[in-house]
């Protein structure tokens, strides 16, 4: 077993243990902190897969944004020192049974399936930048650098992602306005 594989197994063990603690911890603030560790471990997994930009986005948006938002809302809505009530025994038993059955079935399917990589040669030349075919079209892996991702995301050619980009920007605007409207305090009645 090489060093890279060891790093992968340590990272996945870390992710799963902290995720399990995040869903079972009885103190809600500790649960949020375990979630933070789990998300950081997933960012490490992206670094291990050599997707540096996705890892950076994971850290900035999840660890820096969503978890901080969750911690703020815990402070606004909860007495932070109080334990959560324990779930009902029957509910725990049935959840564990359902989850284990689903996990076993999915693992069986995943381990039986034979994955065949699609080499770039069979699908024509690799498109790297704004629809321009790459010079070395037979290369095995595309360069996942920030410049490449940005150029393809904003290109209007066949492999561009400019339409989903605009749709997501509208969605974010709508979510922002919706949050303000929902969380706004009603005005006191004027007399």
């Amino acid at each position, binding site marked *: 077993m090489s060093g890279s594989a060891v790093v992968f197994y340590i990272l996945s063990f870390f992710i799963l243990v902290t995720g399990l603690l995040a*869903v079972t911890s009885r103190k809600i603030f500790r649960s949020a902190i375990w*979630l933070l560790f789990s*998300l950081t471990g997933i960012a490490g997994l992206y670094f291990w897969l050599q997707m540096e930009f996705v890892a950076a986005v994971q850290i900035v948006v999840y660890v820096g944004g969503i978890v901080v938002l969750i911690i703020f809302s815990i402070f606004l809505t909860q007495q932070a020192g109080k334990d959560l009530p324990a779930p009902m025994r029957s509910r725990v038993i049935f959840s564990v049974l359902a989850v284990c059955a689903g996990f076993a079935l999915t693992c069986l399917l995943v381990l039986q399936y034979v994955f065949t990589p699609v080499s770039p040669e069979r699908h024509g030349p690799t498109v790297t930048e704004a629809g321009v075919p790459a010079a070395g079209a037979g290369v095995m892996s595309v360069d996942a650098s920030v410049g490449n991702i940005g150029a393809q995301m904003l290109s209007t050619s066949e492999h561009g992602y400019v339409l989903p980009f605009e749709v997501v920007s509208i969605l974010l605007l709508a979510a*922002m306005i919706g949050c303000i409207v929902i969380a706004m305090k009603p005005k006191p009645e004027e007399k």
Partner: protein
Amino acid sequence: MNQVPLSHILVVSTALFFIGMYGLFTRRNMITMLMSVELILNSVNINFVAFNRYLYPGKLDGVFFTLFIVAIAAAEAAVAIAIIINLYRNLRSIDVEDAGEMKF
């Protein structure tokens, strides 16, 4: 990276998905249920990135799907927390069992 087969990464993401599912089944507090949903979304993101890396190494489509899922998850978390704070203001509780006014 190539010493680890793709199926091991998929097993890890499946385990993370079902851990989130367990949290969604057993927790009755809205904020902890939201945390479980975040775990589920992250397991899907791991799948997209791993498939892109192993099966389609000449393309970037999985990366884009991951980025859009992250953006949508951020919007979803913000709206959910606004709703939770509003419910707390009205009901003084964020337990899903107490928020039964819109049932039926």
